[in-house]
């Protein structure tokens, strides 16, 4: 049955010896043959941001098996069901193996040379006619660090446009702007060890049980060992997480803003805050209000932060009485008081965890700020076992999109294009004239596809993502891509997707261990792997594709590498000193990941904390040293409650929320190719409350027509599924490419982060 403890230790010891033996062993080309002639190499899982380690078994040039890596600190040999089937995701029957060029309605096979010649000519033509801002690249948090870095360098340092965005804009941009506005440095202070060390966990808009399955089992184990552990799930939908939580706190969509301010209100009113921590480590600020929803094309917003005093802030939260927040949220006032006290309980180690409920929010930056407010008021931050922690959804949303900075406004390691010193530093490392790097950000992801629809962007290249399934208000952007008139869409992928459908050129890519790679997970852990198998047919890595375009555009001098992956990493590493330090490449070859900052070979578990973070001096305790502007303090923000962009009304009386299920990952292009997963969860359903269904005479499994102002879809209802919609709400997962729920979603976004709100729009439901 199960391995007993002794056998497990034996297995772990073998794995550790395997790790200690170093690079040559971990490179499967050189590793010793296993029992069945299978060679094993290490890699992080291809799917979510948890970053589970896996051992990849290769035989006869194919991946024949994977298993959880017992030596990986994140998962210690475990996986979720997606990770279990990793060996199958690359071997779907319809894998793309040859470049394809559109000829009328047909996609015709072409050579790489033909395809790249065509792409380069389109880039050149568009740049010559319409300027560099008429071409763009759209990538993802699934880009390896090398791929993201190469794309950033080519577009910002070579072509001279800031038209680069990752799909991470749709997924965690609000977490970024939350971190940047509060701490002036992206990414969490805590790490997964907090899941073992804490005793109180507040979950906000996070279905950890399904979306971070291995981390969830870690948190639940903490509770099994310690009966004092409390898990409180704040949500607008009853999930598998709610089911296992100690308390499920249902609130009306969008009112998390009011709830968090009310929690701060109680903490202040009852004097539960940590006065000395606030004096030493906190500054107070206020920004603009009534900031809009980004619904208009070319929407622009710039916040205007003003310093305020603690007293001003106290006055600001006065309005957010438990009764006021209760009226908005539907959470009883007494419950708000109780939970505020729990947050502030000095005997408790309190953590907040959140995901898309916070980030995909038209006030996503604000709600991120507000949760930090509570931790900063109580001083429960940057301590082992108590931290606010933003969980991530993609394997390298942190490592690539955020740390390399593949956003229109960013440069590597927290730097931005608007800062002349930052541009100068980038230009120096890249060996280019600083004038090459444009100083103005162009488009966030939504605006980028609006620009394509309008025709301001002519040529767009999508790599490692599926925008034409994942964008909100999908109809507009799908149509926009096919409007012709010089528009040219290039899609690199491993399978036909909803995005390759609208492409003019499709490039077959290598994936995961078909190339050398480096991902960074949600706890700042960078993980390296080697190429273990050849990609099928003529498929090539996105890194090669980007560098090939660079060469053909005359920017080959930016990529003078012999061993591109390693040399890119070492070049990129120059950006990271001073708080985001990465170790030399070899260190990652040997380790099962390291959490930055890595200084003198030592990783950092808790940032800003004395004794853990090498940049915090003795005697400082905690120091938010990245925020030099505010004298090393973190910022508590006065951010009000404001309503959603679109709320239910008479015509569209339901809230629509979208999200994921455990079995499928994002748009399902990989998990949908695993027959076992496809059978386990074949198609999307519409979760609905039984009372709403009864009132409308809808029976379980009956088909319903769901419509918003933007689109219509027909789905069977699920009245007693794994997720239980609250009254007046429905929920649909977005993995199913035959049912594009994102056609209904509104393309409103947080004005500060630019992240769209996939969790809230108004729909009607009718019998189909």
């Amino acid at each position, binding site marked *: 049955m199960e391995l007993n403890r002794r056998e497990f230790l034996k297995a772990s010891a073998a794995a550790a010896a395997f790790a200690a033996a170093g690079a040559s062993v971990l490179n499967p080309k050189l590793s010793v043959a296993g029992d069945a002639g299978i060679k094993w190499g290490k890699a992080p899982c291809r799917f979510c941001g948890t970053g589970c380690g896996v051992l990849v078994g290769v035989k006869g040039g194919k991946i024949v098996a994977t298993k959880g890596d017992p030596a990986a600190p994140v998962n*210690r040999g475990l996986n*979720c069901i997606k990770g279990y089937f990793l060996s199958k995701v690359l071997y779907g029957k319809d894998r793309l193996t040859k470049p394809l060029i559109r000829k009328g309605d047909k996609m015709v096979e072409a050579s790489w040379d033909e395809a790249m010649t065509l792409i380069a000519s389109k880039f050149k033509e568009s740049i010559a006619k319409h300027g560099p801002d008429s071409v763009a690249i759209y990538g993802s948090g699934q880009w390896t660090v090398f791929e993201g870095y190469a794309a950033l360098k080519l577009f910002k340092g070579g072509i001279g446009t800031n038209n680069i965005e990752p799909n991470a804009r749709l997924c965690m941009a609000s977490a970024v702007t939350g971190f940047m506005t509060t701490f002036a440095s992206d990414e969490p202070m805590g790490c997964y060890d907090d899941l073992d060390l804490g005793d109180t966990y507040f979950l906000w808009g996070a279905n950890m049980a399904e979306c971070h399955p291995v981390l969830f*089992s870690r948190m639940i184990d903490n509770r099994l060992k310690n009966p004092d552990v409390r898990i409180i799930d704040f949500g607008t939908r009853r999930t598998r997480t709610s089911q296992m939580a100690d308390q499920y706190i249902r609130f009306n969509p969008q009112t998390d803003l009011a709830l968090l301010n009310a929690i701060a209100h109680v903490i202040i009113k009852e004097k539960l805050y940590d006065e000395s921590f606030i004096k030493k480590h906190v500054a107070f600020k206020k920004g603009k209000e009534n900031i809009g929803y980004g619904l208009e094309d070319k929407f622009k917003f710039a916040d205007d932060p003003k310093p305020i005093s603690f007293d001003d802030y106290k006055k600001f939260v006065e309005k957010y009485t438990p009764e006021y927040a209760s009226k908005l949220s539907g959470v009883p006032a007494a419950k708000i008081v109780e939970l505020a006290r729990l947050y502030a309980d000095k005997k408790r180690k309190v953590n907040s965890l959140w995901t898309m409920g916070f980030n995909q929010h038209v006030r996503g930056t604000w709600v991120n700020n507000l949760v930090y407010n509570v931790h900063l008021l109580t001083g429960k931050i940057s301590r082992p076992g108590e931290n606010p922690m933003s969980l991530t959804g993609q394997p390298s949303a942190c490592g690539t999109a955020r740390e390399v900075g593949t956003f229109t406004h960013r440069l590597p390691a927290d730097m931005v294009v608007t800062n002349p010193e930052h541009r100068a530093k980038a230009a120096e490392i890249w060996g280019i004239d600083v004038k090459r790097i444009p100083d103005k950000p162009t488009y966030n992801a939504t605006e980028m596809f609006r620009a394509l629809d309008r025709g301001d962007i002519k040529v767009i290249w999508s790599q490692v993502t599926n925008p034409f399934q994942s964008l909100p208000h999908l109809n507009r952007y799908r149509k926009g891509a096919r409007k012709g008139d010089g528009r040219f869409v290039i899609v690199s992928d491993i399978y036909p997707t909803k995005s390759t459908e609208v492409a003019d050129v499709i490039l077959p890519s290598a994936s995961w261990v078909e190339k050398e790679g480096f991902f960074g997970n949600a706890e700042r852990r960078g993980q390296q792997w080697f190429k273990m198998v050849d990609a099928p047919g003529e498929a090539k890595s996105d890194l090669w594709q980007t560098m090939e375009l660079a060469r053909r555009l005359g920017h080959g001098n930016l990529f003078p590498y012999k061993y591109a992956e390693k040399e890119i990493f070492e070049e990129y590493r120059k950006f990271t000193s001073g708080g985001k330090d990465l170790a030399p490449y070899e260190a990652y070859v040997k380790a099962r990941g390291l959490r930055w900052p890595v200084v003198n070979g030592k990783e950092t578990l808790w940032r800003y904390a004395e004794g853990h973070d090498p940049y915090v001096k003795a005697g400082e305790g905690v120091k938010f040293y990245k925020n030099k502007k505010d004298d090393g303090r973190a910022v508590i923000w006065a951010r009000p409650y404001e309503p959603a962009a679109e709320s239910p009304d008479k015509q569209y009386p339901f809230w629509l929320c979208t999200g994921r299920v455990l079995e499928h990952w994002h748009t399902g292009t990989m998990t949908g190719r695993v027959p076992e997963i496809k059978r386990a969860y074949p198609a999307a359903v519409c979760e609905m409350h039984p009372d709403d269904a009864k009132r409308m005479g809808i029976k379980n499994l009956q088909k319903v027509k769901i419509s918003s102002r933007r689109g219509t879809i027909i789905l069977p209802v699920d009245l007693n599924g794994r997720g239980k919609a609250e009254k007046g709400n429905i929920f649909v997962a977005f993995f199913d490419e035959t049912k594009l729920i994102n056609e209904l979603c509104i393309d409103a976004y947080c004005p500060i982060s630019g992240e769209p709100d996939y969790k809230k729009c108004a729909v009607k439901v009718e019998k189909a």
Partner: protein
Amino acid sequence: MDSNTNHTGITRRRFLKDGVLLPLAVAIAGGGVSTIFLRRADARGFYLRPPGALEERRFLAACIKCGKCAQACPYDSIRMAGAGAGVAIGTPHIIARETPCYLCPDLPCAKACPSGALDGKLEDVEKVRMGTAVIVDRENCLSLRGLRCEVCYRQCPLIDNAITILPRHNQRTGVHSIMEPVIHRDKCVGCGICENACVRDKPVIVVMKSPPEQKDYYEF
């Protein structure tokens, strides 16, 4: 019933240790290894009948093999038994691994039955008893090995009733929990959705003939 046979590799003691109901364990142990394969009928001739079916002997006597139930099924879950079925030839049954019963709220199959072999008066799908799901192969169950699978649980149409999750400490890793799916025979309707959804090549959870209730005075 011989409670000491051990065809499935599950000892009686192990089951008791893991807190599974004794009568169920006894039933499985008698079940035989062939039940874990995709099957038309199991080793003892168990057919998964459509919802509302009478007890098997009475069902065989009543069924006129007209196929109306199969015609009424919107999912084509019900099929008529072929020549290999002996006396049951031509009777309706469900092969859960291929297409399970999705439990239509109005039970059109039972309503279509002209002979009373299926109880047309059955209104509540939760009262259906086609069989009972059983984890017949614990060693191959991914959830029991600590992986986060639990597909059977999440796809169960009576989630949190017919199947619940019992978390327990994973001694192998020391910091994770094993999420064990536990089937409750008093709630399981035997629809076979779990058997259909199981991600293993041979499903480790299958629907079997419901074991007889064995009353005693212990109520924990």
